[in-house]
């Protein structure tokens, strides 16, 4: 029989091999699922992974990958910093919503003023909204030692209620004939996050995601704070001896991840989504958790993982419309990716050993 044996040090090989192996296993298991549903598995896999990048409508879909990957990357990078330090912010979805509400609220408050300062101020307000929402679990943790996983998660539902209130109440479009939802930013140029190059899908959110990826990489590899984050996660006791203040680390990590989620919300509401509406949030904050782990909590890995995740969304939609796959099958397929990732990940820290002799 085989048994699992802990490796003395995590395997470098499996650290990098896990994501591609997980993707390949997902394709195989997904292919079997699609075949069992009576679809041609090769056609489905090609539609999901190949067509959005190289297929007939790639000129449009490539930009859409960027639109979809941007918020995922931005949020996942913030989460990864915390996860590395053992600080579990599960409520990015709520911070994303609050960033959007605060940022959009600032813009709508000055409607219809035209000034080039409006959008930058909204960006700052968006980051602030997410940061402030993340400070609630952070301060409750440092002051009263509450569990940040539970508090941040519960605050998502509070944020969703505030969102419903905003779209039917205090941010409702006064010219919307009573229908819920704010004014659409596409008709308010000063506050709009338009495409930087028409048709490219690139807006300020995409730029922010890529820049943040590089900055976070530098922070982790070159900066004292990055060293503290890694140390706190790997050896909490050693970190304390090294002078790392755990409370300050919690506030910093929650703050950064909250602010980045808030930014993602702001860029989304002023760009692709266009308005505050009851269904504004579509789960980026939760999906970003998968992206963070898929990217090995490494900022550059997360950038790649974000695009891969976006591919399963955009390609999955294509498969749903063109091949008649039910929506649930696509969701199962995405779930498989996380499942295989975690399963294969065991090999980073453990190895299979042939069990010889008696114990």
């Amino acid at each position, binding site marked *: 029989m085989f048994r699992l044996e802990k490796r003395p040090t995590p395997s470098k090989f499996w650290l990098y091999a896990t994501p591609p192996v997980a993707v390949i296993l997902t394709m195989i298991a997904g292919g079997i699922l699609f075949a069992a549903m009576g679809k041609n598995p090769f056609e489905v896999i090609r539609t999901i992974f190949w067509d959005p990048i190289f297929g007939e409508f790639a000129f449009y879909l490539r930009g859409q990958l960027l639109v979809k990957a941007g918020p995922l990357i931005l949020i996942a990078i913030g989460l990864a910093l915390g996860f590395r330090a053992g600080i579990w912010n599960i409520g990015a979805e709520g911070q994303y919503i609050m960033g959007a509400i605060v940022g959009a609220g600032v813009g709508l408050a000055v409607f219809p003023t035209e000034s080039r300062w409006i959008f930058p101020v909204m960006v700052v307000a968006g980051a602030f909204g997410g940061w402030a929402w993340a400070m609630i679990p952070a301060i409750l943790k440092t002051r009263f030692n509450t569990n940040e996983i539970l508090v941040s998660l519960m605050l998502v539902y509070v944020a969703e209620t505030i969102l419903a209130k905003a779209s039917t109440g205090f941010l409702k479009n006064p010219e919307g004939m009573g*229908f819920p939802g704010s004014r659409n930013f596409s008709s308010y140029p000063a506050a709009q996050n338009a495409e930087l190059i028409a048709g490219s899908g690139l807006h300020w959110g995409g730029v922010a995601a890529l820049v943040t990826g590089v900055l976070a990489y530098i922070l982790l590899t070159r900066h004292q704070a990055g060293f503290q984050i890694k140390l706190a996660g790997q050896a909490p006791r050693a970190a304390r001896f090294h002078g790392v203040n755990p409370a300050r680390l919690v506030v910093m990590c929650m703050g950064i991840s909250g602010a980045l989620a808030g930014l993602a919300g702001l860029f989304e509401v002023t760009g*692709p*989504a266009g308005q505050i509406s009851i269904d504004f949030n579509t789960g980026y904050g939760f999906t970003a958790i998968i992206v963070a782990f898929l990217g090995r909590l490494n900022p550059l890995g997360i950038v790649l993982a974000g695009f891969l995740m976006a591919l399963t969304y*955009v390609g999955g939609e294509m498969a749903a419309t063109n091949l008649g796959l039910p929506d649930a099958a696509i969701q199962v397929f995405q779930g498989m990716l996380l499942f295989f990732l975690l399963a294969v990940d065991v090999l980073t820290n453990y190895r299979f050993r042939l069990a010889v002799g008696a114990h």
Partner: protein
Amino acid sequence: MKRRNLLASAAMGLLLASGASFAQGMDKVKACFVYVGPIGDGGWTYQHHQGALDVQKTFGDKVEIQYQESVPEGADAERVLTQMALGGCNIIFTTSFGYMDATNAVAAKFPDVKFEHATGFKRDSDNVSTYNARFYEGRAVQGHIAGKMTKSNKIGYIASFPIPEVIMGINSYYLHAKKANPAVELSVVWAFTWFDPAKEADAAKALIDQGVDVIAAHTDSTAPLAEAAKTEGVIGFGQASDMAAYADGPRVSSIIDNWGPYYVKRVGALLDGTYAQADAWEGIAGGEVLIGDITDKVPADVKAEAEALRDSIAAGTYHPFTGPINKQDGSPWLAEGATAPDGDLLGMNFYVEGIVGDIPQ
């Protein structure tokens, strides 16, 4: 598809789309549907999909049907619509209110594709039509049954979003319940969702806990009926779909959205070249709103009254909003004998007199 063919195929796609001129009719139509929920929701989306299947049945291989389920309202809807338009859809039905901006934005980029938006009011370019059904007519019949059937004199309503569509349903339901039973009181619970079985069940439970024994819902799933089935003596209605599976249990009647005739008409018009922009709002008379079978739980005389009400609406001899009707604050809305103009209904943002509580603002 090779990389170098990209531009060529892009151009081809545009040519194909624009080559399909509608004035002279078409040999084959690709009709596409965007759904807000899964086709197995047993309610709203299920009924739209039945309509799509009617189109297929009517025109056989002259149409190709394509659909996508559970499309979120917002940025994702815009991408799905663009993909469909690029993919050669000739007519795209977007079946939820929240697709309004996405539908109009994509329609402006694809002038040769027809867009049909359910329950909306924006028609920014001439290739956008809107269609809706006068569900409030069905609510009148439901309200009558509710008023007659309640023993606790407390009736409930699970509302989705505070939009005119939903508010006019509540008002019509209440007015006719009140007419049937002056002692009736209405409780409204706002679920802020179209489809979320868990939330819908919670809302039903909250109503039952308050002593409500007749529940109507403006959400898409069967969860409120499943919840009602747990308590003896509580009845409810099928919403959007007949929900006949609950006919032995709490379901005493239903409002059925029947989109098939409209979808067949529009696709047929595209095939024979008579297609034109429209703003359709049909009701019981046009067959878009059907009243599902009234079960034996309802006494024969109440059933007869309900059916007579339905028939008078169908015949056009009775309008569910006929004055005198006051607004909740007591100010007059409709004078004696006056009927509500469509504009008032489409922008309805007030309760009628007698309903307790506020519309969320």
